[in-house]
């Protein structure tokens, strides 16, 4: 067990650092848990990966159908997910639900910058070529589509090149 004393709501005092720049999913939790506490996120990931493959979200064909407007499937998946997510967050806010460790659940506001448009267009272009956004990349590799290792590695290179060029890019 961690020896760090636990104080709820201590996250408000933490100043933002660069992790939060251009990212949705960083967090300010100051809880200092042993590393194996993270296995619960792996469990969620496993369910998520199974759903991705079983609903064929990882299929290159499904992505082509989406962008050729020949099937409702992907719109149904994303639309339902957004509805469920929206309702969940509304309920969490309304009832001020806390995390299982008693932390206040916080969601930072995202600031607009031009990257969301330029980067978004670039991302969408890649999405239709590879048939995968980052989540399905992992699931495809797990499902045995070995060439996707190359795609994932290339996505890492793309991420690194963005980090390198960032000061020169319009935001």
């Amino acid at each position, binding site marked *: 067990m961690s020896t760090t004393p636990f104080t709820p709501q201590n996250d408000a005092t933490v100043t933002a650092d*660069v*992790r939060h720049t*251009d990212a*949705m*999913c*960083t*967090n300010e*939790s100051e809880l200092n848990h042993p*590393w194996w506490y*993270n296995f*619960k*996120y*792996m469990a969620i*990931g496993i369910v*998520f*990966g*199974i*759903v*991705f*493959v079983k*609903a064929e*979200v990882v*299929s290159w*064909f499904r992505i082509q159908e989406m*962008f050729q407007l020949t099937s409702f499937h992907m719109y*149904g998946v*994303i639309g339902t*997910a*957004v509805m*469920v*997510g*929206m309702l*969940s967050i509304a309920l969490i806010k309304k009832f001020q639900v806390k995390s299982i460790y008693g932390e*206040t659940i916080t969601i930072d506001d995202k600031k607009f910058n031009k990257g*969301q448009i330029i*980067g*978004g267009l*670039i*991302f*969408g*272009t890649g*999405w*239709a*070529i*590879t048939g995968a*956004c*980052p*989540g399905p990349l992992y699931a495809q590799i*797990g499902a045995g*589509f070995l060439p996707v290792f*190359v*795609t*994932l590695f*290339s996505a890492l290179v*793309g*991420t690194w*090149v*963005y*980090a390198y060029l*960032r000061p020169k890019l319009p935001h």
Partner: protein
Amino acid sequence: MLELLRQPWHWSVAGLFIGLTVPALLILGNKKFGISSSLRHMCAMTVPAGLSFLKYDWKKEIWNMFFVVGVLIGGFIANNFLSNPDAVEVAAATKARLVEYGITSFGSLMPADIFSVENIFSAKGLVFFVFGGFLVGFGARYAGGCTSGHAIMGISSLQWPSLVATIAFMLGGFFSANILLPLIFKLF
């Protein structure tokens, strides 16, 4: 039961589970659903190269790596223990167009014409894996998130910049699938 699980799952079931990931991560540890950040964490772990964008304590975000390894394991389980015995169905109109482009293998989740190991060191591999992957990684980070972080987490928490990003994703995809890909397929 196993037979039912082996069938392709309905979009509403998939949407429900994917949507529930949002509150699950929030309640389990105040974590915000997002996947493309894992790519950034891997860069920060391996080649930070003194870049300010990669200079942060990635250990604080290690949960995200556990999550994506889980997604990979989930893909393995689904494919090995729950795989669909029947061929994957593709909408007739899309199938007809893809046949025109020269795709011949239907039935799997990914066309073997493109996603085969032999293609890794070919011009096709260069376009579909190397170029495509680069755009996904570069674009997601430039946009500040991918489909999960913006389209699902961002819109769910009513952030309009995420809606803008999602519209840009879709426009990029429409352009790519309908204008760029037909040109790319002419090369092969």
